[in-house]
């Protein structure tokens, strides 16, 4: 086990982490502001992937255009979901919210099967992203570098928006104390719709980015959501910084797990989540 191999595996873990970050960011944002733990967030990733596939792989749009259009569409879908399905749920116990969003997972999965068929789909890799760069004597895919860069960019932009802009302050206020913010004159319903649309777009972005390198099929959302749950819990529900660190942790740990502890890599992640929940349930960055 050479140092180069260890660093290389870490870089692989970093690229894995970015997809997880995009889904977890949306999930934790939705929980922090709306108070809803959305089981169906992995399904939004799946919808983003399917839409990008259709636009780029079937209709021949440019890859960048396909990603943008797919993300915007998922945003609209998110807004509709919030309006129609989440609004009646806010006064209910979280148990019912979990059950309802689980029902949505089933619906999305079968709708995907209905529209795109039960078989997996994958488009060709865009020419600009083919190829590798030599890193530490091994070949690292160009596309992974792009994804890592995009993920960090998203994290940076979100951090800036939330900390420095008026809009960010509004969102943080609504998250901290909904009633007080409403009493101060904020239009809470508008904030909720827009925040959830943004959360959905993040997941959709992750999905759209994934299509050149991963197949999509109706089961894609289900596998991802458990990992996203783990990350948001580890980082602290509602905490974006926590979700970013959590994604890095889970992504890199599972990469190292595969290299160094091949039998246990699944178990390690669940154990980590259980330990955090038992010792510091608010999460590593929670208040």
């Amino acid at each position, binding site marked *: 086990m050479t140092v180069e191999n260890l660093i290389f595996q870490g870089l692989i873990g970093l690229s894995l982490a970015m997809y997880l970050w995009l889904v977890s960011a949306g999930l934790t944002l939705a929980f922090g*502001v709306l108070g809803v733990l959305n089981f169906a967030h992995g399904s939004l990733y799946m919808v983003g992937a399917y839409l990008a596939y259709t636009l780029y792989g079937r209709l021949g749009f440019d890859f960048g255009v396909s990603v943008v259009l797919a993300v915007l569409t998922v945003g609209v879908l998110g807004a509709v979901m919030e309006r129609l399905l989440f609004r009646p749920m806010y006064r209910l116990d979280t*148990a*019912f919210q*979990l*059950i*309802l969003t689980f*029902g949505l997972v*089933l619906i999305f999965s079968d709708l995907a099967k209905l529209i795109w068929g039960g078989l997996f789909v994958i488009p060709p890799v865009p020419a600009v992203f083919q190829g590798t760069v030599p890193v530490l004597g091994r070949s690292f895919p160009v596309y992974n570098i792009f994804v890592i860069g995009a993920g960090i960019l998203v994290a940076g932009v979100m951090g800036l928006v939330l900390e420095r802009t008026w809009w960010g302050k509004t969102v943080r206020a609504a998250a901290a104390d909904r009633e007080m913010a409403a009493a101060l004159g904020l239009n809470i319903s508008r904030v909720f719709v827009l925040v959830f649309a943004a959360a959905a777009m993040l997941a959709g972005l992750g999905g759209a980015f994934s299509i050149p390198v991963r197949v999509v099929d109706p089961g894609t959302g289900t596998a991802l959501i458990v990992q996203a749950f783990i990350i948001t819990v580890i980082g602290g529900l509602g*905490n974006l910084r926590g979700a970013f660190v959590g994604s890095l942790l889970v992504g890199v740990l599972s990469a190292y797990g595969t290299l160094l502890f091949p039998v246990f890599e699944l178990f390690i992640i669940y154990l980590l989540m*259980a330990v955090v929940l038992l010792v510091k349930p608010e999460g590593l960055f929670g208040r």
Partner: protein
Amino acid sequence: MAVKKPGFRNRLGLILGLGAALGVLLVPPLLGRYPTYLATTTLMLAVFSVGFNLLFGYTGLLSFGHAAFYALGAYVCAKVLLAYPSLILGLLAGVGAAGVGALVIGFLSVRQTRIYFSMLTLAFGMMVHSIVWKWREVTGGDDGLVGIVRPNLDLGFVEINLNRPENFYYFTAVILLASIFLMHRVVNSPFGLVLQAIRDSETRAAFCGIPVRRYRLAAFVISGLYAGLAGSFVAPLERAVTPVYAHWTFSAEPVLATLLGGINSFLGPVVGAVLFRLLKEVVVRYTEYWQLALGIVVVVLVLGFRGGVVSVVGGWVGPWLGRGEPRFVQKVAPEPPGQGAAR
């Protein structure tokens, strides 16, 4: 309400009960082999759900990891049957193993509530799943354990051949009946009332001097025992056990069945198990998109009919019986306001 009102209501209940019993009895001769098999699995789901609802409906805790105990029951019973063909021993071992598992996991999980509890049980459930999946030497890994025998039921004075599907079915029905009876005693005892008090207001219960965590743990273990009992039946029924029984998507089955039937009613889980199975089987005859149908049903139920089918039907039948509108009390208490800040 624990008070029994005499008269017409009880008589109607008796008639419904006899009707249901007759329906259960007539499945094998009237419907044949495959429906008998389906009905057997439905009875197992009913046992699972009845136990599950003690934790969910009566104590207010939603666990997404109960499949772990179901799987523990299935695998331990399987190992026993592979070594020594005694059904009673296998069932007892399965239930026992599930109970021990529930004690350990429950002890760690009931320290948290609400969402954190659900997430913890999900994590533990999936840990059990990954152990079952990876530990090939003991559990057979993703191949599972196969070649399990279905021994005759040796009661001492009589030996029943369970290889005949109808015999196995009736045996399962008897076990379900016993489980329901037992749960009825539990729920209508002071213990059951304390659980509901904890569900409705944890702080108030604590101030009354109730050791909340201990009661929650007890409820958790009992529901785990029921899950283990249901799971133990898988080994002789299917003659094979696989890791799917430990996956969180399988944990969702009693959740959905209970929701469908009604979390507020005692027999809701049983009704729900039957409806859930019927829904799946009937829908599948017309379209392959049964998940879509189930998902829509779930959404509609949560938004409109949280009391499940039992409360809906009760709402229709109640006035006809002259009892007025049944009060639907939302038995799972609302979340206190104010959540984490997005940072």
